[in-house]
């Protein structure tokens, strides 16, 4: 049997991993909430951001947390451009098409990265990668603790943007009623692109938080994006607090499943929850609206 301390430590570590899942899911759920599309390119875009953090560290010696600052606007611009000039025009406004275009984009991005960086796995090391913080008898990883804090702050900021700014108002208006928003003079394609950009900017933050303790290779995004889908569905598609809570919950589930079932079966708990939620309550555990 496992001692309570090991289980508690695993749960807390899972909670902190879950914070990063939540950040990734935050972008996904925002894009879903407004554009009503599932962005299959989300994983590949995360991989791009992670490589950018790695390059900033390897070429410029930049701290991964510091690299978040220039990367956020960069990813925003990339996301804005992709939606405005590729996904939007190519999909003719049909949901099935958007799914396929983002899938095509993810294949291209992933394999361009593969062509440039080969399939090697890359890591970066910082002074604090393996630092731990003692909380009573529990030892918590310092970078992961930072991740948890930043994830909560970013969710709060995003909530403020959506609820307290004119842009946020426009985004919510488009999410609720596209035609009506257009009638009152909101530039819908622009709002779509801004939303997509914000979703990608979340990935920049997630990438900076991941890199001190994780590795990057061209295929890494796929693993995260499946988890992020689960989080989004669990939290209720389009719900920001749902994404945060769902992310934390999934992190704990993964960590505990890994502890009890072993590494190779650890992720199965996530997918079973995913299927169960989709089948029983597709609006999500925290999502109120249908």
């Amino acid at each position, binding site marked *: 049997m496992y001692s309570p301390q090991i289980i508690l430590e695993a749960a807390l570590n899972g909670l902190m991993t879950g914070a990063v899942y939540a950040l990734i899911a935050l972008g996904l759920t925002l894009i879903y909430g407004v554009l009503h599309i599932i962005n299959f390119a989300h994983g590949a875009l995360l991989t791009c951001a992670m490589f950018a953090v790695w390059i900033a560290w390897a070429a410029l010696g930049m701290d991964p947390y510091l690299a978040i600052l220039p990367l956020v606007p960069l990813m925003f611009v990339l996301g804005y451009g992709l939606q405005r000039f590729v996904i939007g025009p190519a999909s003719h406004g049909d*949901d099935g098409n958007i799914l396929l275009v983002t899938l095509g984009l993810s294949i291209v991005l992933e394999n361009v990265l593969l062509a440039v960086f080969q399939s090697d796995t890359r890591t970066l090391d910082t002074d604090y990668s393996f630092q731990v913080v003692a909380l009573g008898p529990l030892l918590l990883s310092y970078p992961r603790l930072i991740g948890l804090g930043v994830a909560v702050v970013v969710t709060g900021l995003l909530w403020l943007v959506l609820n307290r700014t004119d842009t946020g108002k426009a985004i919510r208006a488009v999410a609720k009623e596209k035609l009506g928003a257009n009638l009152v003079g909101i530039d819908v394609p622009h709002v779509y692109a801004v939303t997509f950009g914000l979703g990608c900017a979340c990935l920049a933050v997630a990438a900076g938080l991941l890199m001190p303790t994780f590795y990057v290779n061209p295929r890494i995004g796929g693993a995260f994006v499946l988890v992020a889908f689960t989080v989004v569905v669990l939290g209720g598609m389009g719900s920001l607090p749902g994404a945060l809570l769902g992310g934390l919950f999934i992190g704990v589930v993964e960590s505990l499943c890994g502890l009890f079932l072993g590494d*190779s079966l650890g992720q199965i708990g996530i997918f079973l929850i995913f299927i169960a939620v989709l089948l029983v309550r597709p609006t999500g555990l925290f999502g109120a609206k249908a």
Partner: protein
Amino acid sequence: MTARDLIPIGVLTVLAALLPLVVTSSPVLNFLVFMLIVALGAQGWNILGGFGGQFSFGHAAFFGTGAYVTAILQLRYGVNAWAGLVLAVAAGAAVGWVIGFLSFRSGLRGSYFALVTLAFAEVFRILANAASFTGGAAGLLIKLDVRAANLQFDDRAVFYWLVLAFVAAVLLLTRWIQRSRFGAQLVAVRENEDAAKALGVNSLTVKLRAIALSGGVTALSGCLYAQYFLYIDANIAYGSWISVELLLAPIIGGVGTVFGPVVGALTLHGLGEVAKQFAGRIPGIDLIVFGGVLVLAVAFARGGILGLLERLSDRGRGMVTRGPKEVSHAGR
């Protein structure tokens, strides 16, 4: 079905069957066999996704089931490979029916259906990767024992003809579906499920029949893959790439058409090979082409290559150009 339905399928099959008499090089035959196996699996996807409008992102669940069932039956229980093939198809159909029953009964469609199929395939992949019964991460190796009873032949061409025969049979099946009452109901469900229900179509039964057929055909392709390459592991059989590949071919070729999946598989893999020839050793170059072609096809040719050809020939005859939406639904 009329003679006009059968003749194009017959002529193309005979022409394709003559190929090994001209081309004898092993790499080319390997390429053709693999391409046909992909085409066969894509035909399975097309029954559900093309005619039924239910876009699955997890057809690997059926492909892998076909591959694993045939390999396990042969290795662990010494079942004859042909009997194994039949059982693999049955298993694929059963898995399809169960996944369909669970998801369609809950009313999942569109993006939600895509996600749930993806998750089912992932569950299968993780299980197959972890269980010792399926060979775990090391995979399963089918012994080389060249006998017709083992689906192993001296000459690669024989296997090519076998796969071609299955592809032709599924072309006929698809043509039959298109002309049958069942096919009409399936298309009605795709176009407007509520309207179809109002007209008395039992949409759940229709979709279940489609996903079972689809699962069976795709399992057949998985089974042939295992028997030809004699090795499978969880990432090959249940990996997300095979799901993507089975969906790419019909989308590129012409979704919801009889020949679309075959045309798409041929085009994609042809382009992939050309890209590899030109770009040499750059890894993933063929996949970059696949992704680019997908985006372009969705942007400019919604009915795929066949839809594009049809629009061109209509324009040539001076007919009114049809919109992309209509072209994609034209029966071909």
